[in-house]
């Protein structure tokens, strides 16, 4: 909804004359590096994760180009192994985990709950610098040899390989603290800093998603910290916890690792689901269909996600009984996701849908999460996993979830909130072209990988039997399209940032609470703390969200 002339002064008037926007309130480098403003910290996180997304993407392309040939090509076996390890570590620990919570979460959670900042602004800045420290150590490790263990660090390989695993493990340990502090901050902010009238059943769905994520971050990350620390100590001091040659148990590592790393998948996907809940409502101009179901299923996923780690170990030597128990628990996670999917589609019913760039990503997201999610359930179907385990089917499945769902949601959010963050608009036509390229390229990259897995090609293969070549070439062709799509986005967003025209406070006519204030917001977000009198995304009236301003 574009605000009518009569409405806009009320909104614009909130910020226009007095307070400068957070972008212009202090322009020195120090004013950014030493800021406690959640919006600036969010923007710095955004820049950092985009940088690592680029690095990880370059690694991915190098891998795909090598896989054009079944024999040795371009790089040697050790470099290939390092490349896929670094691709995984960069994409997971440096991009996906902080991408939505730390960048968008930081920027939007206080705006959405009507607060001036997060509960612990200094801790928030510390979280950013801990991330920078961890990322620097990871880069140092990469430049000094790099690890060749895969991002899963399976012992005893990781405790015996001569490559530089130690700095990378330490980096994962340090990055964990950034994640924990951010999670803690959001939990406290959501509990204590909500605006008057904003009870839990009016909380925006993005905040519910971030809240569920934060619980996982706070509870699961310490286990990863312990696990990687033990591996590090095992390497340095010969501690025999996981290495059987020293009396350890290699499968114990897998249990401990997946106790974090399975919920970590939900750290990456729950905020993405929150982004989709917001964008579907905003562009369909419709209240969320089944608000409670979507909100509660976020908590359901956060809870059940802790009890499904064993589905990574069906062929690794856990008992048949354990396999059954973990198999059946994994089915419930699938149900919570299904509830959300049906409710998002239901939200569009009788809406007023504007097919803008974020909506194209939503469309891709819906298809990818159903296909990716159901192949995940198929993988958790114990007997099917025997054939698929550690093949390209698994690779394709989690890329459907991580790229197909999380990255699509990230891009939807990036476009939806771009005017909110920078007060500029991007070129809609280029946006749609890039979205079409990315969705097409993504399918062309990963559907052949599902088939490769069916055919039996194991993952992490430097050389492969020649009958796998055709599908590998198809996949690489798709990856090229995908990369091209991302380059287009980079170009038009940079143009929009530098030369884009100033947009109005609420260019989408959204009734999400974050649009109650100016775009970009002033340093303290609101002139006065608003009082919330309605659900988010209530489009029964033509009132702007500014109607819920305080008394």
């Amino acid at each position: 909804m574009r605000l009518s002339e009569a409405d806009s002064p009320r909104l614009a008037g909130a910020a226009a004359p007095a307070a400068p926007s957070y972008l212009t309130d202090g322009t020195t480098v120090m004013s950014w590096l030493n800021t406690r403003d959640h919006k600036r910290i969010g923007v710095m996180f955004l820049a950092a994760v985009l940088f690592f997304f680029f690095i990880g993407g370059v690694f991915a392309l190098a891998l795909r180009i090598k896989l054009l040939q079944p024999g040795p090509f371009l790089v040697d076996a050790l470099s290939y192994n390092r490349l896929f390890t670094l691709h995984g570590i960069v994409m997971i620990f440096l991009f996906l985990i902080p991408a939505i919570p730390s960048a968008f979460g930081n920027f939007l959670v206080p705006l959405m709950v009507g607060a001036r900042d997060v509960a612990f602004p200094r801790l928030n800045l510390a979280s950013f610098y801990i991330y920078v420290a961890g990322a620097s150590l990871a880069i140092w490790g990469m430049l000094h040899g790099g690890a060749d263990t895969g991002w899963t660090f399976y012992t005893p390989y990781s405790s015996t390989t001569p490559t530089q695993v130690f700095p990378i493990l330490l980096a994962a340990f340090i990055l964990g603290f950034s994640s924990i502090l951010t999670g803690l901050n959001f939990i406290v902010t959501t509990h204590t800093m909500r605006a008057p009238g904003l009870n839990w059943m009016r909380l925006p769905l993005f905040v519910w998603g971030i809240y569920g994520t934060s619980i996982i971050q706070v509870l699961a990350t310490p286990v990863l910290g312990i696990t990687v620390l033990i591996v590090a100590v095992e390497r340095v001091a010969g501690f025999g916890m996981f290495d059987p040659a020293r009396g350890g148990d290699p499968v114990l590592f897998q249990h401990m690792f997946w106790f974090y790393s399975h919920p970590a998948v939900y750290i990456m996907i729950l905020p993405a689901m929150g982004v989709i809940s917001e964008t579907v409502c905003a562009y369909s101009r419709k209240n969320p269909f089944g608000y409670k179901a979507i909100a509660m299923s976020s908590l359901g996923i956060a809870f059940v996600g802790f009890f499904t780690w064993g589905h990574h170990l069906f062929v690794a030597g856990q008992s048949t009984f354990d396999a059954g128990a973990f198999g059946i628990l994994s089915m419930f996670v699938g149900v919570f996701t299904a509830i959300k999917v049906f409710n998002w589609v239901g939200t569009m019913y009788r809406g007023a849908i504007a097919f803008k760039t974020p909506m194209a990503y939503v469309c891709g997201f819906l298809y990818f999460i159903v296909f990716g999610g159901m192949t995940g359930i198929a993988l958790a179907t114990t007997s099917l996993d025997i054939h698929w385990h550690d093949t390209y089917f698994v690779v394709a499945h989690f890329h459907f979830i991580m790229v197909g769902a999380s990255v699509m949601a990230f891009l939807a959010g990036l476009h939806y909130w771009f005017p909110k963050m920078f007060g500029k608009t991007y070129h809609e036509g280029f946006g749609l072209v890039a979205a079409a390229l990315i969705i097409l390229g993504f399918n062309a990259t990963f559907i052949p990988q599902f088939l490769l897995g069916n055919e039996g090609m194991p993952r992490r293969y430097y050389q492969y039997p020649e009958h796998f070549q055709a599908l590998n070439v198809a996949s690489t062709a798709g990856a090229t399209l995908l990369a091209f799509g991302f380059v287009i986005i980079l170009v038009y967003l940079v143009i929009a940032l530098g030369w884009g025209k100033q947009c109005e406070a609420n260019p989408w006519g959204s009734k999400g609470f974050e649009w109650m204030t100016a775009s970009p917001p002033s340093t303290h977000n609101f002139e006065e703390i608003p009082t919330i009198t309605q659900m988010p995304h209530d489009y029964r009236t033509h009132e702007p969200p500014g109607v819920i301003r305080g008394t």
Partner: protein
Amino acid sequence: MNELLRRLLFLPDQASTFAYDLDQLHYFVIITTFFMSTAVGLTALVFFARYRRRSETQTTPHIEPPWWMEAGFVTVPLAFFLLWFFLGFHEFVRQQTPPSDAMDVYVMAKKWMWKFAYPDGPNSINVLRVPAGRNVRLLMTSRDVIHSFYVPEFRTKKDVLPGRYSQIWFNATTPGRYQILCAEYCGAGHSIMRGEVIVLKPQEYEDWLAQQKRGALASRQDGSPTEYDFAPPLGNLVEQGKRIAAEQGCLKCHSTDGTRHIGPTWLDLYRRREKLNDGTFVDADEAYLTESMMDPALKVVDGFQPVMPAFQGKISGPEVAALVEYIKSLQSDAVRTGPSEGPAYAPVRGR
């Protein structure tokens, strides 16, 4: 129908008793998945068209789903998922439970090869011979890191763990040759850690086994007379070395034609002056070659990673000799022209 779907989904041949049953569940699950994702995607597209925005000031009604609809959102997928689970787990239990009449073969995995040992005597490297139509149980363990025994045509896979035994069983239905792939990442040679299952007709298998037993008796080391005359010819040391190099997997990392691989090439290696990764030089003589087989991490040639496993206790003295002789024979230029530099041993701990 089975054949059509199998080819559409790029599934390999069905060569064990598990394969057909597993593929049926596979078809069911994948078809449901395709149907659901297409249905959700199409519904969204239809809504995009049907409920497109008609004016910039359009308002919409507040709609919440009735309780039965939410209940349906939960129960319908759950019913499907549970059905998958029970069908799958039934098959999983079958695969996890070896029948009591199965014949056993011991499997030892190490970087980067498979070793098979039959209780009645024969051993083999990278080639597993089994009779068709008989239950076979593999008892597997690893020497170093985790590997995973995977035969796509059998639809079976199991991790091979160091310090533990794991078991797997199958019943191969179709005689033929099937690739064994390592499915758990195990380092530089992971992707070439391949073996082969040769499924023989039962009679052929018996013949092979009998022949192996004769061979094993004939080459007994204690020199006692054997029942049969048959013994495989041993050949000279160079020929033996060539065979041992292939059996022990040396050639997976070392080339014999001068190309650079995971390890230094063997061509012209003998008496080559090698620069080590600590900057010193070593003469690749018999002593260095032997030491490098027994304790490879001690003196690593510059530019290579110390990934070679130690062969201490894994190859016998005569085998080492045969390997050294084989390496000596690999000369691109048969006549040595340069002057001999003489032995260049560094004194060991000052002695």
